[in-house]
């Protein structure tokens, strides 16, 4: 096995695949980049779990330096809400673990019992990134979570988890059951109908009646169970004065059943039972295609999934974890590095350096002094601080913003093309049915009834009802392959109608990871090497970026290394005293703005690195393509220091707005909509949440689709950002395909109607025409959608 597991390149960490430092950590001949990776390897090795490394090379993810504290899990009030099931002996819990990414993860997480025998069973759901764990009461929930955390699979436990337990998708299962029943009946009915279509002799007429009765019996579950939704939907819509496609469908199904029942019971004919069953079967499949979206992605997140479950409260100097809801005014709380401020509070102790980028869009960290009010939602970057709560969580700035009425506006349901078309279709259909009925009524009552029912049966818009779901489902899966995940199929039609696009700046059009660095000053190659070697030891994002930017492999060892968290580093490299960090750290007086990293070698000031915003890949090309047809706007919560570099992308200065609060962003969108614009909002953070909701279509850009993203209609992976124009083009083509397939199915209907109005429609004709039109539509829409995708370079 050893030969299999050896990584091909010895220069990368055995656990996570990161490049190795000058002095890698060694354990059993394997090399590691950091103590965290080595620790995980040793734990797994000890518990005979090293097969973890055989399924994938470097399956681990770089362990985060600071682990969350899980003391709050010992509180029974929190515990109860998280646990799915509990009795005297065992408990069961489902945890969301964002780190799940490969088959090794599944293997390891399903072998947790080897790590701790008190964990009885663990099952992974890979797509949902969830693990269901059953554990005996020999260990606490906290211990289970900490065990997961030590091997690099830290679960994400958020407030929303507690408020709203994810339920198994019951409606999806029900639909599948309905399809199964319809399919079962359809298959049997078809077989039993064949003899009649092929002709039965007079001798075999008792078979005809027998088959007819069985067919009728089989159609009952289809009518009463499978197609129930169509009847209730048609009825509800009629009550509200809406004529949608469900009305002619329900009417067709009802008429078909009544006519079949009379024909079979009066022994005058075989009826249309097989057409009825096939119709319902195909319709339900279309509905299933439409519903089959990403149930494992959450589009309905709000601030609660961003907030932690509990916070550390200080009572007489003692730390105690309390659930957020129990936090009261005048409570003293302790916020550690990298934790989120859950409620508006006053700073009492410590150095507050807060990252508000998610809430306000401002990218630079904010420093706060003692006694200042800190609003909820900021993330503390430097060491621990103590705060006094001045507003309960539900009354805090961020929460109030969210609960603001305008944020709660429920979007009008998207009007789809088929909704609009079906209204006219239904009216015309009824006119033809009654017209042909009256025409024959004068001469032949039987023929009048036959014509009337035949029209309703043959014009039952099955193919019509399927053209949208199948086209859109095909496009949805094409988008999915290109890393755009939409909430529902209707969103595609809305995307095609967009005429105005509004972008957020921070995190949306700028790339949060790859900040470009600029160096001002002089550094020799040798000095660059020394700076790189020193910075390599720090976990600070700027140090990491600096190392990446310098792109030098480690050479020298560092002595006397010291790091002041969030301020700077110093150390001896190659007999030179090097200090890098903020101006404050080096005792400099500078006028350099933004987050600069100053360099001092042997007490001689060499210059500074400054991080500049970098646009996402393809943003330039994207704005060029889009500005031809669409009106582009920019809304940023940030200061306007990027105005100059952005002006080429956005036409007028009035189209760029800086220092926008979330409410202002929302109002801006509202004003655009008042002018009759259909707005696409592209944003990322909580500060865009209101605008995303208000816009006709809100797309959240994120670099990890399982990370937090605010409520939206679609989630776009940052890597696919440049393809936005292609997505819009494809959406437009999809609408074109729907129009074409509507035309085709109307053609089929016209042929059927031509026969039906004469009252000459035979069951055999219906049995051929209906499935044929359906299959034509399914093939046409799927192939056409793929053809356009290829043309748009999305496949």
């Amino acid at each position, binding site marked *: 096995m050893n030969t299999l597991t050896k990584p091909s390149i010895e220069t990368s960490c055995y656990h996570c695949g990161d490049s190795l430092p000058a002095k890698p950590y060694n354990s059993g001949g394997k090399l590691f980049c950091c103590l965290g990776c080595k620790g995980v390897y040793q734990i797994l090795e000890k518990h005979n779990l090293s097969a973890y490394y055989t399924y994938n090379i470097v399956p681990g993810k770089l362990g985060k330096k600071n682990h969350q504290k899980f003391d709050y899990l010992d509180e029974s009030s929190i515990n109860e809400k998280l646990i799915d099931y509990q009795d005297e002996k065992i408990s069961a819990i489902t945890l969301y673990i964002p780190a799940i990414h490969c088959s090794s993860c599944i293997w390891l997480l*399903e072998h947790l019992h080897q790590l701790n025998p008190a964990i009885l069973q663990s099952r992974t759901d890979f797509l949902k990134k969830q693990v269901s764990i059953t554990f005996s009461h020999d260990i606490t929930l906290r211990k289970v979570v900490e065990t997961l955390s030590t091997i690099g699979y830290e679960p994400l436990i958020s407030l929303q988890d507690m408020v709203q337990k994810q339920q*198994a998708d019951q409606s999806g299962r029900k639909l599948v059951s309905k399809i*199964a029943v319809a399919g079962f009946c359809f298959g*049997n009915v078809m077989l039993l109908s064949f003899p009649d279509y092929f002709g039965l002799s007079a001798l075999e007429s008792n078979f005809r009646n027998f088959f007819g009765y069985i067919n009728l019996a089989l159609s009952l579950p289809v009518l009463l169970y499978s197609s129930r939704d169509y009847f209730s939907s048609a009825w509800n819509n009629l009550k509200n004065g809406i004529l949608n496609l469900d009305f002619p469908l329900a009417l067709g199904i009802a008429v078909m059943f009544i006519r079949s029942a009379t024909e079979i019971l009066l022994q005058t004919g075989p009826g249309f039972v097989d057409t009825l069953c096939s119709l319902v079967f195909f319709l339900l499949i279309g509905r299933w295609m439409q519903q089959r979206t990403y149930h494992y992605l959450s589009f309905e997140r709000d601030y609660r999934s961003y907030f932690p479950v509990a916070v550390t409260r200080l009572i007489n100097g003692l730390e105690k974890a309390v659930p957020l809801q129990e936090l009261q005014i005048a409570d003293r709380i302790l916020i550690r590095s990298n934790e989120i401020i859950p409620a508006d509070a006053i700073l009492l102790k410590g150095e507050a350096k807060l990252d508000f980028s998610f809430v306000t869009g401002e990218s630079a960290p904010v420093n706060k002094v003692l006694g200042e009010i800190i609003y909820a939602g900021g993330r503390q970057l430097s060491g621990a601080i103590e705060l006094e709560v001045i507003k309960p969580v539900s009354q805090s700035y961020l929460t109030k913003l969210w609960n603001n009425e305008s944020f709660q506006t429920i979007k009008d349901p998207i009007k789809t093309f088929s909704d609009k078309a079906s209204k006219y279709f239904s009216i015309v259909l009824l006119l033809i049915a009654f017209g042909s009925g009256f025409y024959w009524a004068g001469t032949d009552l039987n023929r009048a009834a036959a014509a009337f029912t035949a029209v309703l049966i043959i014009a039952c818009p099955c193919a019509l009802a399927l053209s949208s779901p199948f086209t859109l489902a095909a496009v949805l899966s094409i988008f999915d392959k290109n890393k755009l995940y939409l909430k529902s199929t209707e969103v595609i039609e809305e995307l095609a109608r967009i005429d105005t696009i509004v972008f957020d700046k921070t995190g949306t059009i700028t790339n949060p990871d790859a900040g470009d660095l600029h160096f001002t000053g002089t550094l020799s190659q040798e000095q660059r090497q020394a700076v790189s070697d020193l910075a390599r030891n720090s976990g600070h994002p700027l140090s990491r970026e600096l190392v990446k930017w310098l792109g030098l492999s480690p050479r020298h060892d560092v002595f006397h290394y010291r790091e002041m968290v969030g301020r700077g580093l110093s150390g001896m490299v190659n007999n030179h005293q090097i200090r890098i960090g903020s101006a404050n750290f080096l005792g400099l007086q500078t006028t350099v703005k933004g987050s600069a990293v100053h360099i001092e070698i042997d007490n001689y000031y060499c210059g500074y690195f400054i991080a500049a915003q970098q646009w996402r890949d393809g943003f330039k090309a994207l704005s060029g393509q889009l500005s031809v047809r669409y009106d582009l706007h920019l809304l940023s919560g940030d200061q306007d220091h990027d105005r100059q570099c952005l002006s080429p992308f956005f036409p007028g200065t009035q189209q760029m707005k800086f220092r926008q609060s979330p409410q202002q962003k929302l109002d801006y969108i509202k004003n655009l909509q008042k002018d009759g614009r259909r707005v696409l909002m592209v944003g990322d953070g909580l500060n865009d949440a209101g605008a995303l909701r208000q816009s006709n279509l809100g797309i959240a850009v994120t670099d990890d689709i399982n990370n937090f993203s605010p409520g939206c209609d679609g989630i776009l992976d940052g890597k696919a950002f440049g393809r936005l124009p292609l997505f819009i083009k494809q959406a437009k083509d999809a609408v074109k395909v729907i129009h074409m397939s509507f035309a085709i199915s109307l053609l089929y209907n016209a042929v059927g109607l031509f026969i039906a109005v004469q009252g000459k429609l035979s069951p055999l004709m219906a049995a051929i025409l209906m499935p044929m039109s359906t299959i034509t539509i399914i093939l046409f829409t799927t192939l056409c959608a793929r053809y356009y995708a290829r043309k748009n370079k999305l496949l």
Partner: protein
Amino acid sequence: MNMIFILIGFSMLLALIFLIAFFWASKSGQNDDLYTPGVRILFDDDKPAEDTLKSDEDHQAR
């Protein structure tokens, strides 16, 4: 030819059994996660510690 009545009865019964089996499978959640079981089946069986050495040799012999 009257045999047909019985045969049709049997065939319907058989089909009904499959339908019920599908319902049972759906209700017990077998269709909820269609991805993970496919990965899970490829994992080797658990081996006790002393067996690992022997299986190493097996791997190398191959």
